């Protein structure tokens, strides 16, 4: 069965500390991998997608096909990074599954 796991419901780090939000997936084929973010009182929006290989707001995500993981990383957290983050693999036949999300809280 296709599945995506975000093991941390809440992650709290100090400003300036490194951040890593974990995402593991179980998917047939080669899914396209996305991270979406929802800031307080805003819409869910794209943070980054694997295929574009862009770094958005200092975040990057490395695909590890062996471990089937797509962890989101940032070397130095900022207060404005506090938000809800969702990992969303999209597989063949456009099957889309969102993870349960990780709430990132940055402490000043």
């Amino acid at each position, binding site marked *: 069965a296709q599945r995506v796991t*975000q093991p941390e419901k809440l992650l709290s780090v100090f400003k300036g500390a490194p951040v890593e939000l974990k995402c593991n997936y179980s998917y047939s084929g080669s899914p*396209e991998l*996305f991270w*979406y973010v929802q800031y307080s009182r805003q*819409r*869910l*929006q*794209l943070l980054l*997608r694997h295929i574009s290989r862009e770094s958005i707001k200092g975040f990057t995500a490395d695909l590890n096909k062996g471990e089937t993981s797509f962890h989101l990383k940032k070397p130095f957290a900022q207060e404005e990074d506090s938000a809800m983050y*969702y990992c*969303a693999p*999209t597989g063949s*036949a*456009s*099957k*889309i*599954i*969102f*993870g*349960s*999300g990780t709430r990132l809280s940055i402490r000043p």
Partner: protein
Amino acid sequence: EAGVAQSPRYKIIEKRQSVAFWCNPISGHATLYWYQQILGQGPKLLIQFQNNGVVDDSQLPKDRFSAERLKGVDSTLKIQPAKLEDSAVYLCASSLGGGRETQYFGPGTRLLVL
């Protein structure tokens, strides 16, 4: 560029009543999605349209939920009759092409069933 529009933003109904949500996607976007997001969970895909055809409705509770996308533009999602467990945020999203492309989300409709 105008974003995805949804209405109403909030709705409170009693169980066994019916309710309908409306979505207007970004102009030119062929694919439209409806998601249900229960508190504390990620969005769950209910139905995906490509133009006015259904691509995936495997998780839509068809005994009470229905959706249509007439003329391949606007869409409505209906619940009849509503149950307590339908209390959730209903999100509409659209993308230019198929499901492997970036999705743009609306603000959502928050439904409370009493």
